[in-house]
């Protein structure tokens, strides 16, 4: 849901031309193509697998999206995710604490690390790129040091069972978690003062400050939210694999960077901040997961996947540029 209110019926026409509708159309078109052209795509098992992966990618995308809204970046999403996961594993395996305690604890860890980012960025006035580039390695490194790079595999069976659940044979509850979080985020931006302040501060921090928004505090909250969402994504990844592995997000958490950006950017969240599309980010990540899965069905070779994703990002950014130029030319306002 875009955070700008659509009122008049003319808005409906605008919605039809909007980014979100285009994404839905693309998802449908590709789904049809893959289903017809490959034997495996439409199988319940594949759809189930696809659903789980998409759910995690969507969450990673959300984690980055809430920071992009402020006009900044969070390169440490993967590192924070890995830290949350390992914290969860440690509490579960070492102390045998129940899920009702360890899950919130993992999210709190994510939020705390996010708070560190936020405070460093706000107090130093430095660009979030370099700060989170540095914290990415510090967070990850400390985690590896503390855990001695050993995975936790003896986790409460409940979480793996949750990951294995199947509704109607092919819907994973992880998708529902992502959808639920998406709704909550949309509500945040549409229905709460904090969410609106996040958008205002991201669009024009000086004007927001002069209008009484505590911009510094708002930015810290955005980063805390980003960390917590990274924690959710990490827990979902644990549910999928059944283990908390330090390298789950790659070296320093780098592997999460591309999915983190692809979803929101495809979904129309501007890198300059101040505008958000939660639905767009959801659809964007879903589309990317779908395309990845489809390419694999076509035996394109998993090694070339990254190239396609990079090309997709480029195409998305360039198309969005063209779209905005067209919109400006033909006046989307009246």
């Amino acid at each position, binding site marked *: 849901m875009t955070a*700008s*209110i*659509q*009122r*008049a019926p003319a*808005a409906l026409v605008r919605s039809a031309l909007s980014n979100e509708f285009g994404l839905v159309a693309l998802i449908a078109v590709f789904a049809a193509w893959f289903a017809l052209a490959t034997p495996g795509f439409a199988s319940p098992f594949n759809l189930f697998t696809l659903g789980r992966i998409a759910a995690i990618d969507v969450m990673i995308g959300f984690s980055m999206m809430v920071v992009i809204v402020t006009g900044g970046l969070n390169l440490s999403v993967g590192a924070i995710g890995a830290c949350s996961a390992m914290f969860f594993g440690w509490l579960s395996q070492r102390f045998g604490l129940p899920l009702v305690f360890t899950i919130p604890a993992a999210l709190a860890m994510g939020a705390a690390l996010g708070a560190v980012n936020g405070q460093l960025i706000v107090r130093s006035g430095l660009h979030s790129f370099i700060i989170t580039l540095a914290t990415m390695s510090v967070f990850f490194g400390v985690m590896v040091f503390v855990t001695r790079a050993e995975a936790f595999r003896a986790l409460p069976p409940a979480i793996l069972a949750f990951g294995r659940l199947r509704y109607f044979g092919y819907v994973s509850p992880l998708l529902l978690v992502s959808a639920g979080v998406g709704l909550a985020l949309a*509500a945040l931006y*549409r*229905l*709460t*003062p*904090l969410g*609106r*302040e996040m*958008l*205002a501060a991201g*669009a*024009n921090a*000086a*004007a*927001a*400050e*002069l*209008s*009484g*928004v*505590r911009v510094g505090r708002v930015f810290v909250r955005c980063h805390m939210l980003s960390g917590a969402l990274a924690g959710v994504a990490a827990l979902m990844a644990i549910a999928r694999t059944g283990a908390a592995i330090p390298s789950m997000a790659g070296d320093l958490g780098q592997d999460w960077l591309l999915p983190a950006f692809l979803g929101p950017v495809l979904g129309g969240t501007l890198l300059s901040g*101040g*505008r958000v599309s939660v639905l767009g980010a959801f659809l964007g990540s879903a589309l990317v997961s779908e395309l990845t899965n489809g390419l694999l069905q076509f035996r394109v070779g998993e090694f070339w996947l990254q190239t396609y994703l990079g090309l997709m990002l480029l195409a998305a950014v360039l198309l969005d540029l063209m779209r905005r130029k067209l919109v400006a030319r033909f006046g989307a*306002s*009246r």
Partner: protein
Amino acid sequence: MTTPTLEVSGVYKSFPGVKALADVGLVLRPGAVHALLGENGAGKSTLIKIVTGVYQPDAGELQLEGRAVRFSGPRAAIAAGIGAVHQERNLIPRFSVGENIGLERLGGGWLKGVDYAALHADARKWLDVLELDIDTRLPVSELNVARRQLVEIAKALSLRSRVLLLDEPTASLTPQEAQVLFRVLRKLRSEGASLLLVSHKLEEVQEICDEVTVLRDGRNACANQPMAGLVRQDLVRLMIGRNEIIPSVSPRTREDAPTLLELRGVSTALGHAKIDLSVRKGEIVGLYGLVGAGRTELAKCVLGLHRITAGELLVEGEPRRIGSVAEAIHRHGIGYVSEDRKQEGLILAHSVLDNAGITVWRKLSGRLGLLRDGAVRARVGPIISELEVRTPSLAQTVGNLSGGNQQKVSVAKWLAAGVKILMVDEPTVGVDVKTKAYIHELLRRLAQDGAAILLISSDMPEMIALADRIVVMDGYRITGELANSRVYDPMSEAIMACIHRTAA
């Protein structure tokens, strides 16, 4: 008669909704310093942008040494010989003086590289022409503002500029530094250069300029008038004129009303000293001064953006320390309509609803901390329609509105917040005449309803029409306070007298 260096004739320029220039002209002779005067919104900066090639005129002609020219962009203007020294520095901070001057001509092939000896020698030559003792090897970042400006003049010379345009050159200079600059300008004049000096400082303009062109409301109030024979009051009269009928509102006395905002002996981190100011309930206090006097900065200190280092700030009679803007707005009911509505007053990319409601989101959120658009619309909608903001809907992006309507939106958010103390900074700059009248009426009404209004303006007629009392500020100090008789001529003379009281 010698060919004029630059001749601007019959220039028109409009922007959507605003006519910036109408039939404007001026003539620059060789060997003369020509002043370009005009208050904020008179069209000076538009004219400068046309001369320097940033804008193209809708109609009219520019002639450089007798030849008609049309600049496609700033580079074309520079190439044709228009040298400009702008208000912002156009230098590469870490580069040396010599390299900045010679940046255009940086040559050298791959084998030999840049010939720095020749570069510095060339720069030295231009600095010597201006009789400046600046080491060309110093990085520009190590020079003070005055010297950086002189480097830019040397650079303009090195590009064989035929016209040298200086935009508010003494804005950040000490009086001594200004004298050094004037010596340089006089030398250039004696060698036949054509200089166009844009400035707000009338005494400086009188000191060094030979002729003057004054713009007012986008037209020539006068053109190419010789400075000899003009006294200061003549210039002031030309600049501010009398294009508005001052409504005969009987002066209101407000001694009985409580003082809502008071500054006692306030000094600030920005350089204000011993500021005494008070605004009563229902009163409009005008804070008059020329650009650079420190008025906006004072408002921002009151708002909590910068530190107050001495003295007391009292809100409704109680001394307060305001630590942040949020505190000023939500706890003390102080609002501030910024003079820079596009960068500070509004979020152009967001809707009217989002802009007008920003101050009340927290207040309107119900149980569970939720806030529906409906609630914001209920609060803000009536205000928007009452202000007669011309917009198709509340969802309209503010950036697409006209200047006048944008200004109304930026005021609306303070009305929605129900502030008791409102500081309004240059409220009618870049606003059409009808909206200007509307805003004046609005301010009067707000005061009548009990708000305390601090009106910051360099628009003399506006000030005299609206204010109950006028406080004059110059150089970050209060230089006078006057009760407003609302009779134009004596008031404007008295106000101007207050300003120049501190002139060296």
